[in-house]
Structures are given as C-alpha cells and as structure tokens.
C-alpha cells in the first residue's frame, strides 16, 4: 500500500516536472527571443487573426514532379519579392511537398499580389549601356514612357547591336528611376529594355534576349582556376548550356568579347532585374562557361542556385486566395472557444452524472490535459512557428471527447473488476493494466491517423491533424501520470474504498455482493467468472495478496463460486 502511494506520488512528481519543464522552455522562449515574437499565448493563423492567404501551386512542364529543392528556391524567390514590396511579417511556407502558402497579415495591394504570382523568368541579355542608379527624384519622368521604348524600332539586327540605342531609349535610360522597375511585367524577349540591378544600385539598357533561361542545363560551384588550370583559391560557377544555348552563347560571346566596357558584358536577368553583369572574356563555343570574379563560396552557391532554378520553367497558379477581415477572424475565434467551453461543460456534466465523484477526477484530468496542451501549443508556436487555426481549435475541442474516453475506458474497467468481486485496490491495479493497454492501442490508432493526415495533407487538414496528434499523445501522458496515480491515492480514502454510493465505484450498485470487510462475493457469472478469478489470482503477486490483507480474496471467491454453480 505504502508502495502504491509512493509510486502514485512519483508519477505525479513526474507530471509536475513535465509542467515545470514546459513552462521553463516557454519562459526561456519569451525571455530570450530576439524578435519579440514569442509570447505566452499561441500565435493565431490567418483565419483567426485576419489577413490574406494565398496558396500557390507550381506548374511544372510535362507533369514532372516538383522537387523540394525547387520549392525551397521558389520560396526564396517569392520571399524576395514580398520583402521587396515592403510587406513585413509575411510567412511563406511549403505545404504537402508541392504547394507554397503565402500568408500576409492585413490586405496586400494589387501590385504585391501580382508580384507574388509572377513566375520567375531568367534570361541573358547583352548590356548596351550601364550606369549607376539615378538619385531618386533627380529627373522625374512619366513612367509610362519607358516600356514604350520598343514601339519605334529602327531596330538593330543582333541583340548586341548599338543601333537599338535610339535617342528615345537613351533619354528614357538617362532618366530611369530604379524605383520604377516592375518585376511583374515581362519585357518582350525581342526588344531591348531598361532595368536596374536587383539591389537597385545600377541601371542598364539591355538588348533583346540572347540566351533563354530554359537553355541553362546546369550550374555548379567549382573552385576557380587560372589560365594554367591552377586553383586560385577563389570560387567560380560552371555554367552548362544545352538546346539552342551553346550556339547563341557562342554568337554573343564572339560578338562582344573585346568590346569596350560595358558593351562586352551580358546581364543575367531574373524577374526583370539584373542579377549581375558578366564580362565576356572569351568566345565560348561548347556551351560550357566558367563565371569568375570575386565570389566567395556562398555567393557562388547563390548564383549557381539562381541560374539553375531560375532557369526552370516553374510558374505558379493561385490555387486559392483567401482574405479574412480581422472582425471575421475574431468572431471565428470566439465561436471556436465558445464551442470548446460548451463541449467541456457537457462532457463534465455527463461524467459527473455517470461517475459521480469520479467525475471530479475527470474534471481534474481534463484540466491537466488542457494545461499541458496549452503549454505544448504555445511552445510549438514560439519555436516552430505553429499557428493555431480554426480547424486546429476544432481539433482541440474534439480532443476533449477523446481524452475523456480514455478515462471512461479506465473507469469501466475498474467497474468490471469490482463486478468480479475484487477489492477496490486490486480492481484498480488489474483494471489499470488492462485499460492502459486498450488506451495505448486505441490511441496509437488515433495517433497514426493524425500523423498520416499531417504528413500527407495540405491546408486546413494539417492544423487539425496536428492538434489531434498532440492531444492524443497528451491523453496518454495524463491518464498515466495523473488519472491513475490520483485514483490510487483516492482509493485509500474511506469514501472510495468502502464504495460510497456517490463514489461511482459502489460495488453493491455494480452487482458485486458484499461479504465482509474488503471482500465481495462474485455475482453469478457463467464461465467467465471462473476464468477471470483464475486470471486474477495469477496476476496477483504474492506481495499484493499479502497487501490485500485480511481476507484471502482469491480463495474466498473460488469458494463462493463453488456454492453457486
């Protein structure tokens, strides 16, 4: 008995440790978070907070699969675009291994939306002119005139032909403001156009496209070598072209190599801005070029990635676009919470109705489960960026039922054992052993469902599966570390051990017949009773039998069995 109590106390101690640990981790996150994002409340998803959520699905050529690498690159590109539009706190994530979800607080303007949706396009264009960026506002010019440059073409014949530089284009170029770059508008491939470097420090007048991004076969980071083939210690990007690439690249390098700066350069254009101008030092005939020039490994990697993925024809289609006003979000949150409160009250009322005093154990266990869930969700929100959505809240509310189900499975098991005529203490232990197995396997099934839903699903389903999974796990923790230990301790009180009618464990109400202190005669059971009492005897360790004390429970029962049959 004393042993049982210490074991119960130890389990409760573990629970306290768990609580303190989770609390401490959260405290740490709140205290030491540099961005000040962490808090003691979970972050809310857009459907509760208000905002806009775009789900973008990649369009891949010929039904090919999108790789995670491509997706990550796409996320990086979109993040650049969103950041460039001045929207803060946008969250861009991949989902289900194929979609990109852009969540923006508030309501983005049309230009931002356009920018997000535009597909990345990479191309090489010869540089006709370049200069440092104009100071903002220096020479204001109606911005409409610039893209119109291609309308009056006394056109050059080749992409690098200086004949493209008409006086109009020259004027537009001279006046060009980098703020006017519109990355959503694709310049016509057969016309020159004016743009700036991605960082906005230089402006360029570029000729028509000479190499399409689609012709880039590969780009790899390699150690740079000098003309003798010795490593220089720097880094280079090895570019490999296929398709029409080698021929057009040969043509452009043949034409511009040796020309004066900046006309000996071609520009790597991504999303209508110049990633970098590259000086052509040699005629490349086989489509394999090495780009060098002051790279460190990281910048070489970045360029290589951009060349590789920027070249891929991934476009995005907007699969869904949802705007939730802050008021609607708030009322959804309130509705979800209200549903939770009502559900909780109903479950508690039913538990008290069915299990009387044991209902109090249900209430306490649910409170512990709720506390743990709150801490875990907050913790994940602080560290993993988890955001609670309406579907997530629904999952939490539904989990009240699942959690309470475990208690019922346990209580009913104890009642079964009491019906067999066992004393409460041993009924508790055998009931627990059996019930915990049932709870484990049925929770394992639920957990499996949640994990698979989470891994294989998109959108709302994830938030739901996530909370369902967490709460299933917490259910096991609570029933093992709280409900069972507390029952053990309660079983020592007279109220429960003597089976007070209001205890919910009254052997008389359960059909077991009172035989004397701590011993009950088994009710009439055909077949079943015999096995169970044998099993029970087997299960009881000698220590337990001794502990059960005053009445030889097993013997008493088989005796009574004999009388009845």
């Amino acid at each position, binding site marked *: 008995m004393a042993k049982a109590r210490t074991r119960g106390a130890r389990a409760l101690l573990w629970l306290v440790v768990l609580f303190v640990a989770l609390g401490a981790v959260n405290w740490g996150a709140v205290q030491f978070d540099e961005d000040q994002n962490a808090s003691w409340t979970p972050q809310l998803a857009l459907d509760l907070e208000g905002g806009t959520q775009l789900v973008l699905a990649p369009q891949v050529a010929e039904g090919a699969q999108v790789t995670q690498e491509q997706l990550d690159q796409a996320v990086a590109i979109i993040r650049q675009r969103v950041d460039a539009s001045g929207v803060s706190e946008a969250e861009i994530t991949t989902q289900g291994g194929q979609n990109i979800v852009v969540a923006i607080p508030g309501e983005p303007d049309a230009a931002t939306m356009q920018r997000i949706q535009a597909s990345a396009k990479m191309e090489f264009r010869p540089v006709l002119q370049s200069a440092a960026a104009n100071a903002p506002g220096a020479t204001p010019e109606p911005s409409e005139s610039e893209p119109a440059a291609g309308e009056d073409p006394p056109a050059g014949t080749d992409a690098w032909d200086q004949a493209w530089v008409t006086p109009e284009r020259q004027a537009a170029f001279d006046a060009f403001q980098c703020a006017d770059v519109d990355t959503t508008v694709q310049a016509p491939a057969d016309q020159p156009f004016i743009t700036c470097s991605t960082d906005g420090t230089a402006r360029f007048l570029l000729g028509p496209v000479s190499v399409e991004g689609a012709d880039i076969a590969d780009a790899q980071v390699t150690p740079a070598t000098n003309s003798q083939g010795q490593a220089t210690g720097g880094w280079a990007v090895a570019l490999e072209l296929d398709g029409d690439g080698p021929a057009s690249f040969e043509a452009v390098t043949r034409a511009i190599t040796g020309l004066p700066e900046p006309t000996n350069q071609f520009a790597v254009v991504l999303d209508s801005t110049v990633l970098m101008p590259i000086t052509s030092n040699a005629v490349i005939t086989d489509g394999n070029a090495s780009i060098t020039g002051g790279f460190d490994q990281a910048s070489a990697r970045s360029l290589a990635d951009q060349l590789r993925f920027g070249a891929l024809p991934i476009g995005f289609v907007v699969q869904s*676009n949802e705007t939730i006003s802050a008021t609607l979000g708030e009322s959804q949150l309130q509705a979800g919470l209200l549903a939770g409160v009502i559900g909780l009250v109903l479950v508690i009322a039913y538990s008290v109705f069915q299990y009387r005093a044991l209902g109090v154990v249900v209430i306490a266990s649910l409170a512990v489960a709720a506390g743990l869930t709150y801490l875990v969700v907050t913790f994940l929100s602080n560290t993993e960026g988890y955001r609670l959505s309406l579907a997530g809240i629904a999952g939490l509310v539904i989990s009240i039922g699942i959690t309470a189900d475990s208690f019922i499975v346990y209580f009913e098991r104890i009642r079964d054992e009491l019906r067999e005529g066992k004393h409460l203490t041993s009924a508790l232990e055998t009931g627990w052993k059996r019930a915990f197995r049932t709870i484990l396997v049925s929770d394992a099934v639920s957990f499996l*469902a949640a994990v698979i839903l989470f891994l294989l699903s998109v959108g709302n389903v994830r938030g739901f599966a996530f909370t369902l999974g967490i709460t299933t796990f917490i259910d096991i923790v609570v029933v093992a570390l709280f409900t069972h230990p507390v029952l053990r301790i309660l079983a020592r009180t007279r109220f429960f051990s003597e089976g007070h009618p209001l205890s919910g464990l009254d052997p008389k109400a359960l059909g077991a017949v009172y035989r004397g202190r701590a011993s009950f005669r088994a009710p009439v059971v055909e077949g079943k009773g015999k096995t169970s009492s044998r099993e029970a005897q087997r299960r009881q360790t000698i220590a337990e039998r001794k502990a059960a004390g005053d009445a030889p429970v097993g013997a008493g029962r088989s005796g009574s069995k004999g009388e009845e049959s």
Partner: protein
Amino acid sequence: MATLTTIGNELYTGERSVPVVQKRKLWFLIAGAVLVLLALGTVLRGGFVFGIEFTGGSEFRVSGVADTSDGPALDAVASVVPEADARATGLGPEALRVQTDEVTDEQAGEIRAALAEAYGVETGDVAFSFIGPSWGADVTTQALRALVVFLVLVSIVMAVYFRTWKMSLAALASLAFDMLVTAGIYGIVGFEVTPAAVIGFLTILGYSLYDTVVVFDKVRENTAPGSSGTFLGQINLAVNQTIVRSINTSIVAVLPIASILFIGAFLMGAGTLRDIALALFIGTIVGTWSSIFVAAPVYAALRKGDEIKAESALPKRERGAVV
C-alpha cells in the same frame, strides 16, 4: 447512473444479452439495406453537392450586417458583373456569404465596394476569397492517399496487436461501413462537400477504430487461450460487456462535436466548424453502431467453426499479460 449501471451489470454477467453474434445475418441485412438505400438516394438526388472549393469560383463574406436578406447582395454583384451566377447564404445572425463564378481581381474589388455599400459596412468587412477549381481536388487527392496509407498501416498494427488478421479485416469492414454511410448521408441530404467536411470525414477513421479496438480488446481477452465457452459465445459476451462503455465513450465523444456543430451551424453558418463537425457527428454515431453491429458480427462470421485454444497453447508469461 442507476439504470445504465444496472443494465451494465446485467450485460456484464450475461443476464441480459443483445444477440449481436447470433442474429448476425439480420445485422448484415440491415447494414446492406442501409448502404443500398443511401446509394440509391444519392443517385436519385443527383449525386454529391460539391462546395466552391471543388468547383472553383469567388466568394465574398460580408460581416457585421444588420439584415441578412440576399436581395441587395445579388443586385450588388449584378451591378458589377451581370453574368456572374451569384448565390447568397446567410451565415448566422449578422453575416452573409456570396458565391459567384470566378471574377477578376478588379471585378472583385468593385463587388466588395458594392456589397459594402449595399449592406452599409466598411469595405474591410467584406472578405474576399478566390478558389481555383484544383484546390478541393488537390486536398481530396492528398486525403485519399492519406486514407490508403492509413488503412494499410493500421491493418498491420491491429493484426500485430491482436495477433490475427481476422480482427483487422472485421475492423476495416466496420470502418468502410462508417465512411460509406457518412458519405451516403451527405449524398442523400445534399450537404455540401467541402475540404473541411473531408477533414471531418478522415477523422472518422481514428474514431471509428477507437471504438472497435475497445470492443475487440475485450473480445480478445474473453477468447484468450484457456477461456471456457464457445468462440462465438465469448465474442457475444465481450460485445455485451462493452456496450455500456461504447455508449458512454460515444456520448462523451459526441458532446463536444455536437457543441461545435451547434455553434458552427447557428452562430457562424456554413464554414469550417460546421463542416468538420457535421461529418464527424454522423461518423461517430454510425461508428458506435458499426463497432457493435458490424465489426463483431463480421469477426464472428470469420471465426465460425473456430475453437478457443487450450491454455497451454501459449507460454505462461503470455497468459499473464492477456488483455
């Protein structure tokens, strides 16, 4: 407490018994008839009603309105895009949902302004969403994949735990019954199938099996090697002994779902909460029925003629751990 407990006592001892196994042909007949009726009804009613997430289109939600009549909404939409096929539904006491064919972003902006004016609210209170036709299909494809993977894994888990594939098979049969009946009720009533409904639908998986596992665990215990009585008799006793438990767990499971459904349907109108809860509500109730009247009879049918093994069939340690 008294009545349910008394019934529980009588079911436990076998004094009172529901002929789950003996009358299994009757239960199969009922299950089959229900499925056929639902299938026929669904076909006659014209198949499933798919939400905007599956068909594609634009949706506006006006919140904080004083009057949820749909006339002004339809006029507002018509004033911007006359050919758009608009449908308006009230969402609770002070919100309204307007669904139209796909409109351009510009048109959407104008419709929002028009709706705001028609209902005397701020433009910010008119939420707009656009859903491409592939969205719902995408969710569903993923969901179906999840379903197949889940079924395979869970059959293995159950077969290993119960040490017999027959229980896996019976559990899957009752799971299939739950899903078909839930789908059938959606079809016959014409409830809108939305991604949220698909979520609820998938959650039935976990629930339905939870119930079945509880019943089967008792069956396994009662039919453990060395138990007396016939196999089918012990299955029947086990089911009867767990009926009260099944009822209690189901009621407790359904209560929060019902509260979400109530709040979702009456306060929020159509939306995530209602759709998740509706599918689950139906599924949980059907699941309780099927864990008793489908899973157990199917298992009994599979075990017909089998006998409970003698006690020595398993090592001693194994016996001690029987559950």
